[in-house]
Each structure stands twice: as C-alpha cells, then as structure tokens.
C-alpha cells in the first residue's frame, strides 16, 4: 500500500553487497541529515536524492533489493562528485567513498550505456590512462593541433561539441600543453641538499606528467631542498584512481598492483604524491586489495608509506633562507586532500612560512570546484555551476592568485577565471614554495 507507515519488514541481517563489493557501510548511516548542507550537489539542487543521505539510502535500497537500478537512481549516483565532503562531517563514520565506488561499478555492470559512452570510457580508462606513453603521444598530437590555430577554429565552429565524446572533452579540459622540454621525464634520482632526512619516491602521475611537468619539477626541487633524496621510479603508470571513481573496478585493481610493484622496487621511506586524487586513492590500496590474499599485506604496507607532498613537507619547518614572495593569495582545498586525506592545516602552515606572502581565507574553501577527476567531462552542467560558485568566492577575496594542490582544480579554476576575464592566477602549492627559494637549484 502506497502510504503505509512502518509496515515494511526488512531483509534478515546479512552483509550487504553489490555484485561482490561490500556496501555494508550503509548501515552506519543513521539518517541524521547532518551531512546535507555540506554536499555541493544538494546545495545546488535541493533534492535529497542528490544528497549524501539520499545517495546512501539509494545504495542501501539497491543492495536490499527494494529498488532496481533505474535511470533516475543511476543519474543521482553519477551526479555525485565523489568529493567526500560528507565523510568529513559525518559523525557516524560512514565510509561514503567506498560505497559510491561500489555503486558506480554496479552502474557500469548493469547500465554500460550506448556506444558513445562506451567509447569515451574505453579511450580514457582503457587506452590513455593506462599508459603514460600513449597519453604523451596523444598530448603531442594535441599540442600540434593547438599550435596550428586549428584549436581556436574548432572551438569557435562548435565542431568540438560535435566531435564524439572523449576527444572533445579532453580538448576542453587540457590547457595549452607545455613545450617538449617541460614534458621530458624527470631524472631518475635527485640528490638531497644539506642533511639528508629521507629517501622518497615521487609519483609523477599520468595526466600530471604530461600536462604539468613543471609541478613535478618544482616538487622534486622543493623536496630536495628540504633534505629528501628523490627517486622517480621509471615505468610508473596511472594509479587507477580515475578508473575506481569511474566504476572501472577491474582495471583499478590491475593498476594498483602494478603501482605497488614499481614503487616497492624504489626502496623509499615514503611515496610522495602531489596530485590529491592519486594520493587519497593510493592510501586506500589496503582496502582495495583486502580480498586478494596475495596482495593484501603488501597493499597495506604500501598504503601506509604514501604521503601527500604538503603532509611530508609540513613535518619539519622549511629550511631557510627563503626569499619573500610579495603577493596576496587564497587557498582552495582540493577535495581529496582535505576530505580524502584530512589534510587541512598543513598547506596553510607551509604558506604561512613564506615571507611577504599574505594569505586570505576563501569562503567555502573546502567545497569542490567541479573538476572532480573526469567529472567535468561527464557532468559538464553541474561542473560549471560549481566552478562559477568557486570563482565567485575567489573574486570576493580580492586575492591575486589562488593556491591549491591538484592539477584538476588548477585547470578548473583557471578555466573559470578565464571565463570571467579575471586576471587572478592559479598555482600549485609547490610552485609557490619553489619560488620562495633563492636562485633555485636545477
């Protein structure tokens, strides 16, 4: 009966799962609603299916068999940014990130979608992201295309929109690619300066090494200045974060195993990561591979050695002398730094040590900017709404630059500022730290 109150008897106790992936965590949600106003999609739409509590409820209802995976449910789950702001506020400790990953994998299984969507996924997850070489090749092609002036033409003609899924999406996402020198790989070993404090392995990332080689260089220089010997393991690929968030569970497992193998060989004290999505994901390898007896222990050990670059650097005061950087900046917290890894004070503490730098707080600094991995490719409308919200707050601070710590956020905020014709610039935290060193080393 439609309107009955409390007439339903629940399924007997038993672990809840979606096709083998546990979602037992849904039972930790006590439906208090304290997470609602912290969820960017709920704040924008006001619909509870687009809130953490609502999504958890949908996942629970799916697992209990109360509902089938219909179009509406899939849409609400896919609209989730996986920003994990809800995890930060949830007093009950609901492991939301795991639940949504399982749900997205289920969507892929049950509703793989049409040819366009499958091509998009195959190109991204299967081809480009699994191999930095392939991504580099694609990047080289893209660079030639951009340089030829064709890019502007394509954008203007609206051809980009008509080009099928992926290429158009990457076209919009990628900034002007740096020159070849910037894209060249880092040396395999960068020695520590001064007293050596640790040997660290640097994740050079997949998209990152192609688009943002400069960040990796700055990271390596700053780490070396802080006394770290930096190894850059050859043959490293994608960590699998985008695959996992996109519901491509099988390939995520494979990429995780490969990453662990590559980094173990580097024999470092820590694995330093400067892209937040990767760092948060690699810290969760222990959970990801928990059911694989051959890998579980290795994965846990590896995960424990992963640190975000800000987390690592903030452990000791910056080694001076530092040169002033006269600028007013504001800091945007990348989701997978602040929510995924609970790193909030470290970047601010580091910035505070740079002489001459004035840091003003950003309203909703820990709200997703809409970049969210491939989200701005798959959900352009919501991504743009959140970008506009973010840029509005940035402009309200009057800061000359936004400092953040993740390539996706940098691209997204840059695009938003450009769209408003604003002059403010966007930096990775390590770029600013790098600037603070007098006449930096190589």
């Amino acid at each position, binding site marked *: 009966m439609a309107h009955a109150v*409390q007439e339903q008897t629940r399924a007997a106790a038993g672990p809840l799962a979606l096709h083998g992936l546990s979602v037992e965590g849904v039972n930790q949600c006590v439906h208090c609603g*304290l997470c609602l*106003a912290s969820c960017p999609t709920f704040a924008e739409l006001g619909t509870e299916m687009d809130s953490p509590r609502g999504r958890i409820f949908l996942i629970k209802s799916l697992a209990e068999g109360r*509902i089938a995976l219909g179009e509406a449910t899939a849409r609400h789950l896919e609209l989730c940014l996986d920003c994990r702001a809800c995890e930060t506020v949830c007093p009950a*400790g609901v492991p939301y990130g795991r639940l949504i990953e399982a749900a997205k994998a289920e969507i892929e299984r049950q509703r793989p979608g049409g040819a366009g969507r499958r091509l998009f996924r195959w190109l991204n997850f299967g081809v480009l992201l699994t191999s930095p070489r392939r991504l580099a090749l694609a990047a080289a092609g893209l660079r030639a295309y951009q340089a030829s002036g064709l890019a502007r033409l394509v954008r203007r003609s609206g051809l980009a929109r008509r080009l099928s899924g992926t290429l158009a999406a990457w076209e919009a996402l990628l900034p002007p690619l740096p020159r070849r020198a910037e894209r060249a790989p880092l040396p395999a070993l960068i020695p520590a300066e001064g007293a050596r404090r640790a040997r660290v392995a640097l994740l050079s990332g997949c998209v990152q090494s192609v688009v943002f080689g400069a960040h990796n260089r700055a990271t390596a220089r700053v780490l070396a200045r802080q006394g770290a010997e930096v190894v850059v393991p050859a043959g490293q690929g994608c960590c699998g974060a985008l695959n996992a968030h996109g519901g491509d569970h099988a390939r995520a497992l494979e990429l995780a195993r490969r990453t662990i193998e590559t980094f173990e060989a580097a024999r470092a004290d820590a694995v330093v990561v400067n892209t937040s999505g990767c760092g948060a994901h690699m810290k969760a390898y222990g959970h990801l591979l928990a059911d694989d007896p051959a890998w579980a222990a290795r994965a846990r050990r590896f995960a424990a050695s992963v640190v975000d670059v800000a987390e690592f650097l903030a452990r000791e005061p910056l080694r001076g002398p530092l040169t002033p950087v006269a600028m007013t900046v504001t800091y945007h917290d990348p989701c997978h730094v602040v929510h995924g890894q609970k790193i909030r004070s470290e970047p601010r503490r580091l910035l505070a040590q740079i002489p001459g730098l004035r840091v003003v707080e950003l309203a909703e600094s820990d709200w997703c900017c809409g970049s969210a991995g491939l989200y701005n490719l798959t959900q352009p409308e919501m991504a743009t709404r959140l970008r506009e919200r973010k840029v509005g707050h940035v402009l309200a601070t009057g800061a000359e630059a936004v400092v953040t710590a993740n390539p996706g956020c940098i691209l997204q905020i840059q695009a938003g500022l450009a769209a408003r014709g604003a002059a403010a610039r966007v930096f990775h935290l390590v770029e600013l730290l790098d600037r603070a060193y007098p006449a930096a080393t190589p």
Partner: protein
Amino acid sequence: MAVLTESRKASLRRELEAIVGAGAVLADPDELLVYESDGLTLLRALADFVVFPVSAEQVSALVRLANRESLPFVARGAGTGLSGGCLPAEGGLVISLMRMNRVLEVDYDNQLAVVEPGLVNLHLSWTVGARGYYYAPDPSSQQACTLGGNIANNSGGPHTLKYGVTTNHVLGLEVVLPDGEIVWLGGRTRARAGYDLVGVFVGSEGTFGIATKIVVRLLRKPPAVKTVLAVFDAIDHASAAVSAIIARGLVPAAVEMIDQLTIQAVEDAFGCGYPRDAAAALLVELDGLPFGMEAQAARIVQACRDAGAREVRTARDEAERQLLWKGRKSAFGAYGRISPAYMVMDGVIPRTKLPYVLRRVNEIVAAHGLRVGNVFHAGDGNLHPNILYDPRRPGEEARVVAAGAAIMRLCAEVGGSISGEHGIGLEKSDFMPLIFSAADLALMQRLKRAFNPTGLCNPGKIFPTSKSCAEVGPVASRPHAIEEKGLAQRF
C-alpha cells in the same frame, strides 16, 4: 485517503509542472522512496509527489491545487526532524522548501533579518557573523536544519537555557495558509496589536500553513564566553551538579549532559577531548560581559566539585571550545559508530527529578533488552534518551516503541512532558492524552480547525487518531477522558 490512479497522477503531474516547472516535480517511485523518512527512520510514509517551489506565489498555487483535488500536503525542510513531522502520513504532496533559501535582507540597525524558510540555521549566523551578530537558537542539527523547520517545531538548543526557544526570536512571518491565501503574521517589531498569531504559528508543526518568509531577531555576539567541562564517575553526581548550579542562582548559557556510551561514540567520531572512561560529563557555558565572569566560573567549578566531579577544566581557547561543542552537537549522528539505528526520546522533567528519572530510563531500556545513550539539555530538564537498535533484527523495532512509550509515561508521571523540542509529529501523537485533558485537546482541535478546516495541511499529526494508533504501535494503557468523550479512539 485515496490511492491515485495512473491517469489522474499523470494529469496532476502536468498541473504541478505548470506551477513549478518540469525540473521541480518528483514522481518516480524510486525518488519518492528517498523522502519516506526524516531523522526518525522508525516511521515511513510515501508521497505521491515532491515539489520544489521557489516563491510564496508558487507555494500558494500548489496549495490551491491540492485543495481543489483534496490532496493532502505537507511542508518539508531538511528532513532532520525527529518525530516524523514532515512525513506525508496520508500521501499527497510533499512541498520542499529547499529551493527557497535566501537571506533577503539584513537590517543591522534594527537587529533583524528577513529570510526564506529553506535557509539553513547556521548559514544565517555565518552571513551576519562578520559584523558581530548571530541568530541565537542553536539546535544541535543547526548545520543542516532549516529555519522553516525550526519555526514549525519551535526548536530549542543548548543555549535555550538562557536565550529561549525559536518563538522568542521570531518577529514576523509570511505564511501561505492551508487554503492558499498569503498573509503576514507579526512584522518587524516586537510591539503587536491583536492576537499574537506569530506565537500561535510557531510550534504548530506545519499544520497551520507554510511559512514562506521569516523575520528573525539577531543578537550581538557575547563579548566573552567561558566553557567548563566537568567529568564525573557517577551519573548521579552529574545530575546533582546540575541542580547545584541552578540552586546557587547561576544562569549559565548552557548546561549539557553527555553519558559514557555517548562520549565513546563521539570520541570515535571526532576525538573531541571527552574522557572515555567518565560515567558522564557536563558541558557548562557562560557568556556575556567579561566583568564578573571569572567569579561565576569559579562558582560553577565549585558546584561541580561539591557534587563529586573528578575533574573540572575550562576550555583553553576557541579551538578547544569548538571541538567540545562539535562533539556535543554530533552526538546523535555519532551513534552510527555503535549502532545501525536509534530512536531519540524528547521528554521534559522537573530538574530535581533528574537522578531518579535517568536511573529509571536506564532500567526501562535494559528491561527491553536494548541499550540507551543519554545526551541532553540538562539545564532545561530536557532529556534525550537515545534507544539504540538494529532494524534488521526481527522484533527490535517493536521493543523500541514499547520502551519509548514507557519512558514517555515516566516523564508524564513525574510531572513533565513528552516533548521538549522535537515536536509531537506522527511519533508521539498517541501520547498526547498523557499530558493533556480532553478539554485541552478539544481547544487545540478548535484552533487547528480555524487555520486548517479541511485538515489537508499535514494530516495525521499531533492529535491521537485511530489511524496513527493502529500504525504507530503500542499506546498508553490507561484510558483517558478524551476517549470517553469520543474525541479519539485507541485500538
């Protein structure tokens, strides 16, 4: 209650979309399911539609349509209510106010703000905080709940002890009456002529219409605040300390109690600094002018020590104070660490009965084979026993309901009330006769009919009805005068 046919549903949907737009009507059963509960998952009810108006005019048009179609309707804010107040007990329309969440005006000179009902409570304080103001009523759910919900439930909070409840802070309301007419109650000043209709509307639990604009008072932030944490090895000692503080004529802004089970959940959640081995802790806050505050704090510390506190300390800085409050305010949610579900009770008792009632509550819940966590506004004598349970275990929900009923009877017996701030809603309607006579209830019914003659606006709430009796579960066993008069029935 009629079940809508598919064709009528389709035509209704078109009409609703004509009012609020296509993206603002939910009718898919999977989506409606998400709206089946509020913060109390024990009760569930499904709507036929959930709609998202953006203006008073749209709300009014929706209400008129509902009247024409004899369709029940109910307002919903954030759905953090704890008594099923926003559930569509008889189906029909759920009117969500979440897209009406703007601060329309802040008048600092006159210390007031005009806001829309979907505004989140805490967001108002954020908006005016930079200028040194805040909105005083602070339900523990303030990071999520809306002012519309607060108005409807006349919500309180830890600082109610000194600052009063929502009604003390509302100056005026724009309301869409249950027949669709838009009226203003009260205004922008405290002086009023005629009946105090704002006072009547606040606390009417969404049965007198839908608030679409709210004029609230703003207060200046107190120049000084001091927060004391007192730790006890016995609950009785903590209860005694509460009485001692009040008996010494001290007026703290808040006196909150939190017991061991709750401390453990909260510490698991955020590591807030409550000692895990304490039987209970009191969080006492003083605010106001700095002058004399030290002396007051010293007297509070002394009162706690005299009552047997093993440790009393003052929050060193704002960060520590915030963390202690974060623990207190997250307590309900933190039960998710130790239990898949809970039901919060909301009894009010005379403060002097605190030790006795707490003991009895623990006995009652244990006798039903369940666990209970207590975290509550001790200064007001407003108890919140949280009965923990697992809905997947057959029979547990029934035992929860039975234990809850026994606790409500206990509160009534000691001269208290069955609800302090969470509202009667669907959950406690059958227990109204415990505290109100037939004449009381009849008067309330007459008042309700004056506002809501058709009963279409939020039906099934507050008053004991035969329907809710059958569905909500066991009710008080003692027959009540109201039944003899035929005003209500019990099964």
